[in-house]
């Protein structure tokens, strides 16, 4: 029998009842993250069926998608700035959490932020845990060696009621990262490069493990960027084996085990990495040293090229490709770099952590955003906002002519009042360039914080390497 993978080990540890030909496995969930958009209908089902939340202590609730990114400290403020539907959703979340006994990191809370940013930040995300959330970017938590995946609202209801899910075991997919990144090339470029290589459905039905020599050089925040977009390659989950960087990241965080419990946990975590002879159902290798900064040109994240490359030509039968270029108002055969930019968005659960903000600041420092380019910088959490402020990053952003906002999902999906106007071109550090994702008719180019900042300065899609000394 071959060895077990990281995924196999975590899965097996959480099986309450194994799967058989008639029924899926019952899988226990260690941490359930809840936000205001995908939970109201689940709370309604609990209410109408007279069911309580089984484990409020394993449930972490916050508000991030609909929340404004201008300062709001009370519901009265909120009513002024938020659209009525967003306001109602936020109020409903407060009511639901109160009624079902859940601690809510709501507006004004010092631990509030994007759900996938705050759970690792608090140390609630840990190696070996099963983590779910009604949000496809839950894969982010795999950066710390957790088995984390997005679920729908009916499943949110199931987890609230039973702390369990019914699941068929997915196949496994090893993505081997080899080599050393060149200057100006980032974790975002790695994941965009992976999606370009495997396609947006390359991971469907699979759990990804990112492996290989290049992993050691990646910080936990970089790993989060890479795991975050596993779903953009079709996989519900993406994960890195825990290592010393993981343990260093977690040590001392408020929800991480302390003292003796830390030593016990550490011993268990060290057993998790895949065995040397573990087998995977699928495997690809990417030499990251050959990567250049990447940017999307179409309307899904798989339509991606190196920033200095030309937009590819569609095959005559590919209706979707032609539709995408029409929507983006871009021409096959032309360079992407140099396209005029209207909006730059630096934020989202993909790229809103302190290292992302520092990267943006390294380009923006002492420079000015080009005239007419709206540049919005949105930290991932209240804590990141405080840390950035302590380093003086907002001063750099403001001096450059960028806006510095309150934490939230913001312009990534344009639910909260921040959006890209119709027909305008945005360079965004977020995760989806689907039609209308950042606002009806908005055109999105996905790229790294370095590329986004360089494009803000030049006013056109730009290669960040010219800014790096």
């Amino acid at each position, binding site marked *: 029998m071959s060895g077990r993978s990281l995924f196999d080990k975590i899965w097996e540890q959480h099986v309450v009842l194994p799967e058989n030909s008639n029924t899926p496995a019952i899988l226990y969930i260690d941490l359930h993250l809840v936000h205001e958009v995908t939970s109201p209908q689940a709370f309604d089902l609990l209410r109408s069926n007279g069911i309580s939340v089984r484990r409020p202590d394993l449930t972490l609730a916050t508000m991030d998608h609909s929340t404004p990114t201008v300062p709001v400290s009370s519901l009265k403020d909120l009513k002024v700035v938020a659209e009525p539907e967003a306001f109602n959703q936020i109020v409903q979340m407060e009511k639901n959490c109160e009624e079902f006994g859940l601690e809510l990191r709501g507006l004004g809370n010092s631990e509030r932020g994007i759900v996938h940013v705050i759970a690792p930040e608090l140390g609630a995300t840990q190696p070996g845990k099963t983590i779910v959330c*009604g949000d*496809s970017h839950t894969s982010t938590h795999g950066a710390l060696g957790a088995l984390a995946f997005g679920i729908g609202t009916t499943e949110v*209801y199931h987890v609230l009621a039973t702390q369990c899910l019914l699941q068929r075991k997915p196949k496994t997919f090893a993505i081997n990262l080899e080599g050393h990144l060149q200057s100006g090339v980032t974790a975002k470029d790695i994941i965009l490069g992976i999606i370009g290589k495997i396609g947006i459905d390359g991971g469907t039905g699979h759990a990804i493990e990112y492996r290989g020599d290049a992993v050691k050089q990646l910080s936990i925040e970089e790993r989060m960027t890479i795991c975050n977009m596993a779903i953009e390659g079709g996989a519900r989950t993406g994960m890195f084996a825990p290592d010393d960087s993981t343990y260093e990241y977690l040590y001392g965080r408020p929800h991480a085990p302390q003292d003796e419990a830390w030593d016990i946990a550490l011993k268990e975590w060290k057993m998790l990495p895949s065995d040397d002879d573990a087998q995977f159902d699928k495997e690809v290798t990417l030499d990251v040293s050959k990567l250049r900064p990447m940017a999307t040109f179409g309307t899904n994240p798989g339509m991606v090229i190196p920033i200095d490359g030309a937009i590819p030509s569609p095959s005559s039968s590919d209706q979707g490709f032609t539709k995408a270029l029409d929507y983006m108002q871009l021409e096959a055969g032309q360079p992407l770099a140099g396209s005029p930019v209207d909006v730059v968005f630096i934020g989202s659960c993909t790229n809103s952590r302190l290292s992302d903000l520092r990267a943006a600041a390294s380009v923006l420092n002492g420079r000015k955003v080009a005239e007419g380019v709206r540049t919005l910088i949105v930290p991932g959490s209240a804590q990141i906002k405080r840390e950035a402020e302590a380093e003086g990053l907002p001063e750099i952003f403001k001096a450059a002519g960028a806006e510095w906002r309150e934490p939230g999902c913001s312009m990534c999906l344009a639910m909260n009042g921040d959006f890209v106007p119709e027909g305008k071109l945005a360079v965004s550090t977020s995760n989806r360039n689907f039609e209308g994702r950042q606002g009806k008719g908005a055109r999105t180019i996905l790229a790294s914080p370095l590329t986004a900042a360089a494009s803000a300065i030049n006013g056109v899609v730009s290669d960040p390497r010219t800014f790096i000394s």
Partner: protein
Amino acid sequence: MEPVNKINSRTVVIPLDDVDTDQIIPARYLRTTVRAGLGENLFADWRYDKNGTKVADFVLNNDEANGAEILVTGRNFGCGSSREHAPWALLDYGFRAVISTEIADIFRSNSLKNGFLPVVVDEQTHEWLIKNPGAEITLDIESSTLVLPDGRSTSFPLESFSQYCLLNGIDELGFLMDNSASIDAYEEQTN
């Protein structure tokens, strides 16, 4: 959830690959706290122009789409966001099934929990369906087969427990609740 046994209907074809859930229901319509009413904004940005007028050449705005319960699309339908509002919107509009050569994982899981049938067929059957919009076909859940107008039939994969839940109109929660003793035991053993 109502039991689903057979779906007989004309098809509507959207031949595009990679239709993501942001197209099925754009994020700005997720600020609702209920399920009902999402059908009005199904494929909103393809169905309506910026003034809210129906886009004449979008298939759902044609008479032939009226009353059709089966949607046929290109590969990798339902990719992207995990929003269950996507199957809710399709159901609220009147669709009961989608046919493709590949359906994204989370969308498929969400669909089955709402009695909306995700059907993956072989390339040949798919090509025929794409070329013959409006075909009267049958989806039989009990035998997990698709029957074309000329009587040819082809089987499609349907996970056994989901099939059982569809046929009996059962929410999976009941099964989890029935096993609460095992969940208690698991918690005791791991704490």
